């Protein structure tokens, strides 16, 4: 369990790059509405154009209890985004069995709390990741597995692979390795649980706080946008 590196992401990010001051960018109509410019005109009716709002927390005591419950019932979005996703199979089967931690794979992002970025993220995959992430209901957590997700890994000079996933969605826990062993992933999950219990895994609100910044980053690389600005 020692060859792992766990980083508490928000701290890293704040020292790397300051997000822009709150202000209205061009795709944001107002406080509550989005432009959805990436969509053809006739499809705009079919997508919700509301801007996500920051979620309020409950009273601290209750929130602590709820955080505990959340940490005990993490449902993973079963979406293999890269080669690291193969690690989920040993994790759910009898050898490691994450179900004893209250975790289970869930086939729909609506019902999942945790998305596992399983390795390299190409532009095409990034688009799907963003969509799935936004479709999850918060509080939601991101665990990025493999070095590719951290710094590009062996795809460090690829024309089509993003190197830092945390520029596009807020990541709670990174698990290094190429690929990390299931034990490492498990340790990552445990770290996430600690963060949740400590009330530090507020990636969802972070995403909304820095929504414009994230969106700008996403749109910079995803040229073929063709989806609403926020996938409800």
């Amino acid at each position, binding site marked *: 369990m*020692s*060859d792992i590196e766990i980083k508490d992401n928000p701290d890293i990010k704040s020292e*790397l790059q300051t997000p822009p001051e709150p202000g209205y960018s061009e795709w944001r109509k107002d406080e509550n509405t989005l432009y959805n410019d990436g969509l053809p005109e006739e499809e705009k009716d079919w997508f919700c154009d509301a801007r996500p709002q920051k979620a309020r927390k409950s009273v601290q005591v209750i929130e602590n209890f709820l955080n505990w419950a959340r940490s005990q019932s993490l449902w993973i979005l079963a979406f293999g985004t890269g080669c690291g996703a193969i690690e989920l199979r040993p994790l759910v089967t009898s050898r490691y069995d994450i179900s004893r931690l209250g975790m289970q794979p869930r086939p729909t992002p609506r019902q999942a709390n945790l998305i596992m970025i399983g390795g390299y993220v190409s*532009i*095409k995959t990034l*688009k799907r990741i963003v969509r799935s992430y936004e479709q999850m209901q918060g509080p939601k957590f991101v665990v990025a597995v493999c070095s590719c997700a*951290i*710094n*590009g890994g062996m795809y*460090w*000079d*690829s*024309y*089509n*692979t*993003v*190197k*830092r996933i945390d*520029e596009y969605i807020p990541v709670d826990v990174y698990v290094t390795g190429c690929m990390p062993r299931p034990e490492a992933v498990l340790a990552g999950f445990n770290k996430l649980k600690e963060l949740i219990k400590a009330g530090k895994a507020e990636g969802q609100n972070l995403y909304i706080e820095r929504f414009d910044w994230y969106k700008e980053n996403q749109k*910079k*690389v*995803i*040229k*073929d*946008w063709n989806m609403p600005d926020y996938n409800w």
Partner: protein
Amino acid sequence: METLYKELKQYFDVDEFSVQKASLAFLRVPKSQLVSLLTHMKDIRGYTHLVMVTCVDYLEQDSFLLTYLLHNYSTHCDLGIQVSISRQNPVMDGIHHLWEQGRVYQRELFEMFGIDFPGSPDVHEPMILEGWQGPPPMRRDFDTKAYSEATYSHRPRDHKEPEEYMKQQLYPED
């Protein structure tokens, strides 16, 4: 294979015949004769299976070398038919009428090398690279590293020598 080559020689301007092993050989054909040769191979010679279509960028010779790999199920032989086309005018005749799956290869070749196949269905639709705006990425004159550095931000390296760091982590008491 040799006999096959000799027979083909009578009808087509094939050359640069090279045998890799008993069941695999390559030969080269002029661009204009490719489709008729492939038709011949498929309909008469029994090379009914299109294994793949691939391309090599010979930047120095200013040409793309396309390789159509065929397989014969009765003799279990593979034949690679190569054709060289100009890099300046990368247009090739499609073979999707012979093999339906040919259009997928052709889409890929267009996307990655910019080789056009007029008439091939959806050939200009993006396949893997959604919304790609740069030059075809598999061309050798495309500098992927420069592109990557310009487009994607890199995580600054938090430099630690692995050996020392691991020692520190694992055996801090030493």
